């Protein structure tokens, strides 16, 4: 599999960095690839823009910055506005469909998949786990890391006592993604 570049964008408090961290951890620790993570924050803890850049490859990675991601995961409108134009043509956009509305800025050939991750997380009992729903959705739609590796990365990355709910959040997103890709319904899909 060639080098894969991913950007995760959203607001502080949505677990953007943890989402990127778990994807990188799944690819490297549990799927035996090389991975890097670059994170950038706004000055405030909550509500400011933040993003994570994850790269993984079979070979060692010489340049960890992501300029034109293969996959973009956005959890807020601002992240979509800022990062969507940089998506590689033919890339994949994964977005929080209750918060983000697609428009003409999406590059040609991009396939977009939406999931109401915040709502699903609330239904599970905790809005906090929306980022883990997004991790599951990423794995279900793209298959770029194995579900076993991703689930192990989730369980080993979250605070003790929260593993079960996070595992449920992962599976919820994963199954939603599988359903969307496999049957072409159950969520929002858009081909630019």
């Amino acid at each position, binding site marked *: 599999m060639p080098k894969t570049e991913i950007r995760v964008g*959203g*607001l*502080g*408090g*949505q*677990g*953007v*960095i*943890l989402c990127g961290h778990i994807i990188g951890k799944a690819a490297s620790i549990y799927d035996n690839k090389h991975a890097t993570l670059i*994170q950038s*924050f*706004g*000055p*405030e*803890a*909550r509500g400011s823009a*933040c993003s994570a850049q994850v790269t993984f490859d079979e070979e060692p990675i010489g340049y960890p910055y992501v300029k034109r991601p293969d996959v973009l995961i956005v959890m807020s409108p601002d992240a979509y506005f800022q990062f969507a134009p940089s998506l590689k043509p033919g890339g994949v956009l994964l977005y929080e469909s209750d918060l983000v509305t697609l428009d003409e800025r999406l590059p040609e050939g991009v396939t977009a998949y939406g999931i109401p991750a915040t709502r699903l997380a609330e239904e*599970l*009992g*905790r809005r*906090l*786990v929306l*980022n883990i729903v997004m991790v599951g959705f990423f794995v279900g739609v793209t298959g770029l890391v194995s579900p076993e590796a991703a689930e192990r990365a989730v369980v080993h990355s*979250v*605070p*003790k*006592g*929260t593993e*079960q*709910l996070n*595992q*449920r959040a992962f599976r919820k997103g994963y199954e939603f993604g599988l359903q969307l890709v496999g049957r072409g319904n159950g969520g929002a899909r858009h081909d630019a």
Partner: protein
Amino acid sequence: MLEGYPKQIALRDGTAVVVRPVEAKDEEVLLAFYRALPEEDRLFLRDDVTSQAWADRFIGSIDYETVIPLLAEAGGEVVANGTLYRTLHGWTTHVAEIRLAVARSFQRRGLGTAMLRELVGVAISAGVEKMIANVVDNQVGAIRAFEKRGFRREAVLKGHVKDIHGLKRDLVIMSNDVSHIWDAMAAMVADYSPTLGG
């Protein structure tokens, strides 16, 4: 939140017990379990759990969202029943109440503690921040089991219940606040730099 059930657990003496969610088909075995409890154990329960009407109501109320019951089976019989009660509206949506009954022959063998471990796990998995339980002051074994699972005495209602001899006893309200678990998760998803702001 009920993934992983049915689950086999071993008690301190090696006895194997299966814990699983209560289903509609369990009405009769559950009723038999409660009817076999000594009267003094049943007296402190909120309902007349030996009546068919209660069994119908209880089974009918199970939705695995606001009423989440587990039972333990050994040798084909129910030996414990523990239920989480939640509300999805109002100011106590973060709280769940635990009610637990254990067969006399299985008391002091670690089953109560094991059932509580399961119920606490299910509650946390459902996003609950605080659990409460009502225990009568002389139910020493029950109080110890709750304390082992992180519960503390939060309030005492003096002379609030009468025992089988008509003696007034104190009702102890025990609680287990697990919100720190979710505080840790909130800190983890805060997305702030350790070197900027925050």
